[in-house]
């Protein structure tokens, strides 16, 4: 683990609240990029991500006990997700759920799920295994996912692939399931 982050963690787990407050700045500087990118997976909205993360850091300052004995960035991210982020993520859409048909449990699973096999793989590792898996897809499947990742609408993807929107949705769904199978296999190999 980076020395700067290790020092910040030591200050952050101190008993004195003022010392913890002073340690927060280097801790945020060392972890902001990692945490916000991770949160973005679940929210897809940078404003929401910053709001949630603000509360997460304040929660860490208030109750830092879980961060004692952290030895790696991976362990830090896992601990922060399980004990701080998930609670905050669950609060994000709690209020609108009064008017939803989705059950509270399904909403929780959608917004703040259990950690899946691939959730803790770092983004650079993920990029590598994703590009390997994409290389094994059929050309049409790969093009659909590439266009989606460029931000294209389903209509635009359908135009590009000369098909209907309904067919594009089915193609994307099947390709995503295919990718899941492949990525789990890569993950197990690692």
């Amino acid at each position: 683990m980076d020395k700067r982050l290790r020092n910040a963690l030591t200050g952050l787990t101190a008993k004195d609240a003022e010392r913890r407050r002073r340690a927060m700045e280097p801790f945020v500087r060392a972890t902001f990029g990692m945490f916000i990118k991770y949160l973005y997976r679940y929210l897809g909205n940078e404003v929401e991500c910053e709001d949630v993360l603000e509360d997460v850091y304040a929660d860490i300052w208030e109750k830092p006990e879980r961060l004692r004995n952290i030895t790696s960035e991976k362990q830090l991210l896992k601990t922060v997700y399980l004990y701080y982020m998930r609670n905050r993520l669950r609060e994000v859409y709690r209020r609108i759920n009064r008017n939803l048909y989705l059950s509270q449990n399904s909403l929780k699973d959608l917004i703040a799920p259990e950690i899946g096999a691939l959730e803790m793989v770092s983004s650079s590792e993920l990029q590598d295994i994703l590009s390997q898996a994409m290389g094994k897809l059929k050309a049409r499947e790969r093009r659909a996912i590439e266009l989606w990742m460029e931000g294209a609408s389903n209509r635009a993807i359908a135009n590009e692939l000369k098909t209907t929107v309904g067919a594009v949705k089915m193609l994307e769904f099947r390709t995503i399931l295919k990718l899941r199978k492949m990525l789990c296999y890569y993950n197990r190999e690692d």
Partner: protein
Amino acid sequence: MSDRNREIHELLVDYADALRDGCIPAFLKSLTREEAERIASSWEFWDATEISRILNGVGFADKAVAPNVSLFISRVDAEIASRLKKSKASPPGKRRTRTRSAAKRENRT
């Protein structure tokens, strides 16, 4: 997202689109009772959501990294200061746990 009684593949693609475009609440509100039940009982949907999140993270998470972290740090510090003030002002048992930014977020949704 206006179609009613969408099949599971359409629901997954609409969820992935909503995640990518940062409008999950619109997706959640668009669900009918039947669609919500369909989602709850489909393992394929839950399997696919994990990959949707990963694609979203790999493709778009970089844009969430604010160029000015100092501004964000001052927000965190203000939140900590506010909690410190609250903890000094009232005994722990009577403190409200909901924070200012959580209330702000709820108002927005």
